[in-house]
């Protein structure tokens, strides 16, 4: 039951006397955290639908869906499809494939 939860680790450290081994976990978690951001493909512009959390978090699912030709269909994609169909008129009648590609191209 390992927990790569940065704040949890940090919190413990504060209370449980900062030892060097502890500090290491924090360091490595921070490293993961810092670099995780590079994997995030969102643009920093306005708060349009493309920035919606549901859409952003569907990016990897959309890539899996497109690459597997619809075989891998995760819940994040399903949620984004629903959201986009209700919010974006052009998406209403578009196929799953078309919308997944649009999410992938964000």
């Amino acid at each position, binding site marked *: *039951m*390992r*927990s*790569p*939860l940065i*704040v*949890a*680790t*940090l*919190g*413990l*450290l*504060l*209370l*449980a006397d*900062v030892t*060097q081994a*502890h*500090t*290491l*976990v*924090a*360091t*490595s*978690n*921070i*490293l*993961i955290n*810092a*670099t995780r951001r*590079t*994997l995030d493909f969102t643009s920093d512009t306005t708060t*349009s639908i*493309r920035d919606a*959390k*549901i*859409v952003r*978090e569907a990016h*990897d699912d959309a890539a*899996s869906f*497109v*690459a*597997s030709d619809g075989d*891998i*269909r*995760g*819940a*994040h994609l*399903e*949620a984004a499809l629903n959201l*986009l169909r209700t919010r*974006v008129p052009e*998406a209403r009648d578009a196929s799953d494939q*078309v*919308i997944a*590609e*649009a*999410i*992938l*191209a964000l």
Partner: protein
Amino acid sequence: MRSLNAWLLMGAMLLLGNTAQAGLQLQLKTEGLSPAQQQASQALLDEAMQALPPRFIEQLDRRIDVGWTDDMPSNAYGQASLVSELDLNRNLLASLTDGSAATKKTYRPHGTVRREMLATVLHELTHIYDRSRFWPAAERTLIQHCTRRTNSSGLIGIPDECRGQSDRRFTLSDDPRLLDLAGWPQYVGRRGEREQYNRQIARSPDIYETSSPKEFVAVNMEYFLLDPSYVCRRPALYRYYKEHFGWAPAAKDTCGKSFAFLNAGNDFAKQPLGQVDPERVYAVDYLLAEANQNWVSRWGHSMLRLVICAPGRPRGPDCRLDLDQHLVLSYRAFVGDVQLSSWDGLVGKYPSRLFVLPLAQVIDEYTKTELRSLASVPLNLSRNEIEDVVEHAAEMHWSYDGNYFFLSNNCAVEGLKLLRSGTNNAKLVGLDNIMPNGLLEVLKGRGLADTSVLDDPREALRLGYRFDSFRDRYQAMFEVLKKHLPIKQDKVEDWLALKAEERRQWIDQADLRTSAALLLLEQAAFRQQLVLAQDEVKQRYLGARELKSGGMDKANATLKQILANSGFLSRPAELLGTGGYGLPQPSEWQRLESESSLRQKQLQALTGDLDKEVRALLDPSRAAEMAANEANLKQVGEHLRKLHKAAGGLELP
């Protein structure tokens, strides 16, 4: 004949007279008290009598003598004898008499010295009441039945409803339900035996309450009777007392609809203070991270998922896909893989706390970083049970500070306790499982978990009952690649082991489908680099620390500052002052908001600094490989967008 009638009439009148007089009487010992002292003392006792529940006065049918005594530690307020005497500390008499006690502040939740004295009278009377075994009829029958059963056939095979009921000696303080709520949960596997220490120690109105269940009952009675905000601060206990007495004080606050919590998500750019409205919680799922070979993960990790509906969406199955709203309740020990000590884990050295995390982060952590899959199984709970679980989780979030034992008090045990105390569901009372995967089996066996949602793996994946490990996805992506491009590698591991530059040449040849696969594989390569980098930084860090130089000083200082600033996320109660207790109330809300956002801003700034420091520690070749990898990711992204645009694909606004 006439005289017999008269006798009967007289007898009846006596009986009636007795009934009218029955009940508790507080008799002041007036010897040695001046008239003013008598008057002030009597006023205090009258007030106490008025605060007591009718059932309490009726049941505790006796005269209790109340006096002032010098024979007491100077800081004590009072104490009760076993049956019918109550002593107050004479030190306090002067300030009660001249009225200054009513204004003298104590800086404790009761406020003034006089309120403390009133609370003391109620507290000590509650001890006498608790000792007097005033069980309601049905409870008395159950206790007698269970005691007989245990005496004849022992604890083995004891029915669930008898757990903790045999040989009870107190009206309230050994009631299993009270113990669940108070923080003395059942030990697992010991047929109802209770844990010795109460770990609900944060946000306590009076830490004395955790010294024993008897004191807990008495302390909480003070607040139940005197504090109109008790109903909002400790809602479950309020209902417990209310139900026992069939009555509650008239003065009562109106509670907010939602519960505050600190979101322990790893995105420091976001305000960590959140709210959960139980009305919007559609379901509670048992969320199980499947086991891997890491020894602490061999039985999986169990959590609870709150399926929360998006604002404005009526509660229903559609809420299952409002994934950005869902939260995960997770008991975690604060350990990482480097220094995890099995001995420390077995003896409970790791603090265990209840964290509230965004679902998306939990999914990422398990499926992408640890490459473990997650199963999310709906629990069959009634509407009330769902709301009570949310409420209890909020109470535990603010008050619990436990010890984590890998075997006897792990996430499965903590989760079970949370469900048991939260719902009071009879089917949960006798559950004793201690392993996460085992617990799911038992829940299923008792009809509490609906695992049929997992029967069709594709549907389960689509609807969010299962989140697959990315290990499988990377394999699938490699197969797509292999099919569409003339690459030489036969295994995904070999592909990922290539240099980023070697992989880069294929990007421009890829069609849309293959580019999508390439993208995920580049991400996989990047995560792999991260793991390697972590290890290297760790080694360097250790080395540099030992040398006392090595250019680590700056990073070290920043790290220490981060640690000093982030403790609050794991111990949310630290953000609040000492004036309140239990669930934070609107009056405390503002402080909570400003404190948490202030600390979070400092954290964000410090994290930025540390990023730079830590990156500087990377081995130059590792740093170059990572940069090349990042360039690949960027290039695949651009290539994808180009193909998409050329094909005239849909553009999202």
